[in-house]
């Protein structure tokens, strides 16, 4: 049974990727249908109850700058906020919020229901409707067919999901939800290159059964940070502390005693887990010299006593879980409300994607989130946003869009995924970004809001406030650059306070600000009579730009140098096997990765500068076709 009308975009899945995808497509004017197994779990945080962190907070701010929901939902649901790395430079500072799961779901659902052009529908999706090599719609559990110009799959851990607790395992999408097995089988038939990954969660505990007196209290920051450009601390609900405790020698003995029944160490689990988010049994085995590992007790929400003991993710049998929990200071009488588990799921090799997140195999089919081998709410949401944008663009007959590596962490992530693929669940770290000094939380709006506005993602209110901020920054920089101070007019004590000695020549205030030891506040307090009048976020931005200017200029020169290479597209049908002058290894790598541009080819390991030159020569020959060559002149070689 085919239901009309035709949609522009169908999004399958209602997690962080799916909801951002649907919201973005609908905001751009595409008629969008979001199909989910359960409307109740839209925006569900399946793992730890927190949003952001180093690298991840950067992604959240970028999603926000492009009009996405995650930052605003975190502001409405956040019960503790912190700026990590606050003592280090602005490029590596990042916001993190502990979130109330229920409030977060509500904040997302309110946005979905209030979004024009977006319809919600509850049904499991079992099949894709394919015509030729293009996707045309979906088929649900009870045989309903919905048609669309583009389909975004955000299946999370639901594709052939398999939950392990000790030696027992069962099919599930996450604890309490059925898997998407039929869809997984159907996708496997499409012969997309697939693999298995694994992730896990700790057992959840009843907070009333914990002894907080032996734990360390970890409060949030004061003043309380906000996530969204449009956010305000007054949106935050009541704030709660987190707590810290540690595993003991006894814990480690219990874990070692249970390894013979661990699905991880008996070979039952085939999927690859992340090295940076190991289970507690992994930590004990791999870092056997450490006699204790930290545990952070995170509140699940304001309306529940349940807590999330971050640091003891495990798939050991339940009796071992119980014993190890009871061996931890403060957890001696803890009641486990939900056992910890590991879950294995299907993902598809992201090298099969274009940078728009459209699959190469089927036109109009987009993937976002864990299906691409990533982990994390923020990584999923950012991809969902991009897939939603590109699905809408395609439905509207417009060119695809993806930020470059120097424009956004989103660009770094997508380029990493489609160029290099994954060997473990992919998580964002700032060290992945070579242009880290440009890609900051504090300038996410300046980097992306304008393109977001052009794409139709950014509403009038955000745009107006953004333009006002951008103009204020430009004005303030202009004022500081054109305001000069003279040695004669600056009192020696002011100069001493500012730069530690008397001034020997004239300075523009902006040049003084570029010195590491000078702040905009000091300028206002000493020599800048008109200073101190701009809003703090403007002053902050001016100061950061001044401090980083030399480094940013150097990076810009680098970006410029590589631009031609980044822009040169490689034809989809290029026959690498037929190219001479390339080693067999390089030919095979290029054929496997099928880079979209010469710049991507350069980032494939083993592809040398010489190989790029050879590629360039072949490209030029292909492009020139039969044009007669210019006569040879000048010197001989």
């Amino acid at each position: 049974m085919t239901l009309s009308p035709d949609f522009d975009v169908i999004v399958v899945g209602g997690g962080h990727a799916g909801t951002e995808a649907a919201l973005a497509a609908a905001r751009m004017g595409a008629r969008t249908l979001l199909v989910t197994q359960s409307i109740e779990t839209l925006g569900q945080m399946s793992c730890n109850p927190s949003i952001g962190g180093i690298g991840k907070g950067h992604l959240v701010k970028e999603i926000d700058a492009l009009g996405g929901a995650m930052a605003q939902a975190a502001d409405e649901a956040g019960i503790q906020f912190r700026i990590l790395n606050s003592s280090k430079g602005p490029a590596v500072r990042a916001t993190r919020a502990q979130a109330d799961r229920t409030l977060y779901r509500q904040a997302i659902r309110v946005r979905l229901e209030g979004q024009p052009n977006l319809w919600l529908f509850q049904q499991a999706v079992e099949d894709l409707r394919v015509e030729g090599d293009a996707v045309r719609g979906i088929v649900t559990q009870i045989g309903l067919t919905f048609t669309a110009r583009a389909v975004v799959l955000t299946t999370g851990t639901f594709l052939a999901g398999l939950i392990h607790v000790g030696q027992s395992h069962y099919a599930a999408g996450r604890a309490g939800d059925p898997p998407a097995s039929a869809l997984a089988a159907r996708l496997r038939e499409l012969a997309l290159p697939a693999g298995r990954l694994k992730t896990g969660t700790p057992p959840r505990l009843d907070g009333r059964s914990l002894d907080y007196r032996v734990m360390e209290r970890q409060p949030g920051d004061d003043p309380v940070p906000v996530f969204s450009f449009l956010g305000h601390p007054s949106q935050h609900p009541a704030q709660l502390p987190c707590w810290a405790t540690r595993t003991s020698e006894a814990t480690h003995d219990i874990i070692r005693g249970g390894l013979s029944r661990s699905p991880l160490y008996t070979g039952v689990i085939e999927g690859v887990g992340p090295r940076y988010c190991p289970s507690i049994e992994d930590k004990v085995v791999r870092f056997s010299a450490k006699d204790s590992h930290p545990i952070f007790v995170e509140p699940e929400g304001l309306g529940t006593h349940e807590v999330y003991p971050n640091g003891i993710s495990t798939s050991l049998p339940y009796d071992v879980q119980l014993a190890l929990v009871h061996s931890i200071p403060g957890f001696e009488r803890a009641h486990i409300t939900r056992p910890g588990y590991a879950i294995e799921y299907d993902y598809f090799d992201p090298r099969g994607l274009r940078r728009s997140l459209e699959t190469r195999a089927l036109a109009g089919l987009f993937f976002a989130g864990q299906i691409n081998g990533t982990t994390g709410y923020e990584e999923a949401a950012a991809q969902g946003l991009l897939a939603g944008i590109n699905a809408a663009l395609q439905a509207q007959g417009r060119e695809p869009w993806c930020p470059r590596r120097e424009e956004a962490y989103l660009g770094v992530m997508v380029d990493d995924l489609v160029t290099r693929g994954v060997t473990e669940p992919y998580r964002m770290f700032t060290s992945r970004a070579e242009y880290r000094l440009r890609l900051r939380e504090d300038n996410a709006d300046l980097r992306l809001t304008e393109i977001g506005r052009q794409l139709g993602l950014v509403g009038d209110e955000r745009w107006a406030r953004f333009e006002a901020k951008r103009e204020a920054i430009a004005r303030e920089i202009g004022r500081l650059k054109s305001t000069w101070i003279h040695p004669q007019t600056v009192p020696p004590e002011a100069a001493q306070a500012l730069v530690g000695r008397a001034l020997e020549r004239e300075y523009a205030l902006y040049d003084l600000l570029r010195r590491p030891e000078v702040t905009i506040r000091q300028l206002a307090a000493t020599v800048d009579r008109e200073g101190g009048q701009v809003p703090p976020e403007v002053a902050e931005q001016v100061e950061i730009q001044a401090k980083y200017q030399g480094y940013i200029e150097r990076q810009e020169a680098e970006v410029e140098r590589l631009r031609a290479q980044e822009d040169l597209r490689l034809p989809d049908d290029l026959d690498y096997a037929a190219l001479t002058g390339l080693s067999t290894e390089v030919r095979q790598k290029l054929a496997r990765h099928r880079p979209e541009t010469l710049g991507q080819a350069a980032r494939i390991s083993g592809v040398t500068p010489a190989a790029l030159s050879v590629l360039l020569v072949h490209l030029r020959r292909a492009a020139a076709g039969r044009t007669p060559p210019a006569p040879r002149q000048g010197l001989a070689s």
Partner: protein
Amino acid sequence: MANADTIAATATAPGRGGIGVLRVSGPRVPAIAEAMLGACPRPRHATLGDFRDADDRLIDQGLALYFPAPHSYTGEDVLELQGHGGVAVQRLLLARALALGARLAEPGEFTKRAFLAGKLDLAQAEAVADLIDAASAQAARSAARSLEGEFSRRVDALVAGLVEARMYLEATLDFPEEELEGHAASRTRADVAALLGQVRDVERAASAGRLLREGLRVVLAGQPNVGKSSLLNRLAGDEVAIVTALPGTTRDPIRETLSLEGIPLHVTDTAGLRETTDAVERIGVEKAWGALAKADVVLLVLDAREGRRVADRAVLARVPAGVPVVEVHNKIDLGCEAARVPGEEGASAVFVSALTGEGMDDLKRAVLALAGRVPSTEGAFMARERHVRALARARTHLEGAGEPGLGPELVAEELRLAQEALNTITGAFGADDLLGEIFSRFCIGK
């Protein structure tokens, strides 16, 4: 794709005699020509000119040819300076062009540019592709050869130290809440200082700079009357030492500065190294031992009829480890046809006659080659230049990282750039590799 940058390379085999050609291509050519020649030469004419350095001192004289775009091999502005070809001169010319804004050309890059400018037949594309492949493979082999042994080990140690420093620093940036062992947060400053010392050492070892500035200290050693002084005279081309047939006539170590391929050689002719009771002669002998301790190259002069003697071994025992030794078998004109056996214990051997000049070219070549600083092919010359430049870039960034008051993310940026510079020597080491190091060293993750 228009090339915004200007490339330069030495185009003919540097080394003994012949003509060395510096070739420059790209938009900066007119400016470079004007700076080095005083004026841009008339297009497409061979012009005799002076090639000058930044202080307007003469580097070399020769022919300058200027081909304005598009009528050139690469289709860009091209400058060729054909000089006298000595290694030192070639280096100075190339360094000057690089200082004026050119960068070192990649292997095969001139040909690649020619092709991309449509100067070569399309049918030649495959030939061009193969040429680039072959040229880069040859450059890699040359680089490997020129970097064998001690130098290569030191570069590897430098890179390992850099990776370690970055691993600790990046871990503190990306995982501020983790418990990182090894004083991760406080060690960076000391790491950077150590790396800076290391890179300066490697750079000194690799650089032609010291060679150009200070020259090579060559010590003539050997038993009395084997012909050391005659050899020095032959090398110098005029009489500087008192030469007699009586043992012990050279009382003082005599220093003579010669120029070989443009490289200054400070040759010290030692008194015969032997036990003596003569007070004056003993002073000379002691000075000789002192010179030996500071040598870059030792020429152990032997009488070809006798070969190595016991006393020679005593001399060799006092040559500092790592200083190359050439056995110079002199007096081959005296009709001896002794077997020309290779030198002992890794020393190379040459057979000469200071009297007739026979074999002297072999000796000069051996001295330059053994100094380890004079690769004999164009590929090796360019390969070494690239490595020296890469080390200098790495050093600049390490110096930046050592600036006081710099935030950790800025130190990390400088270290990343230092690593990128060294990647051109050792191959790529990317973010994934670094994360791998972090995850294998630290227990990361909640």
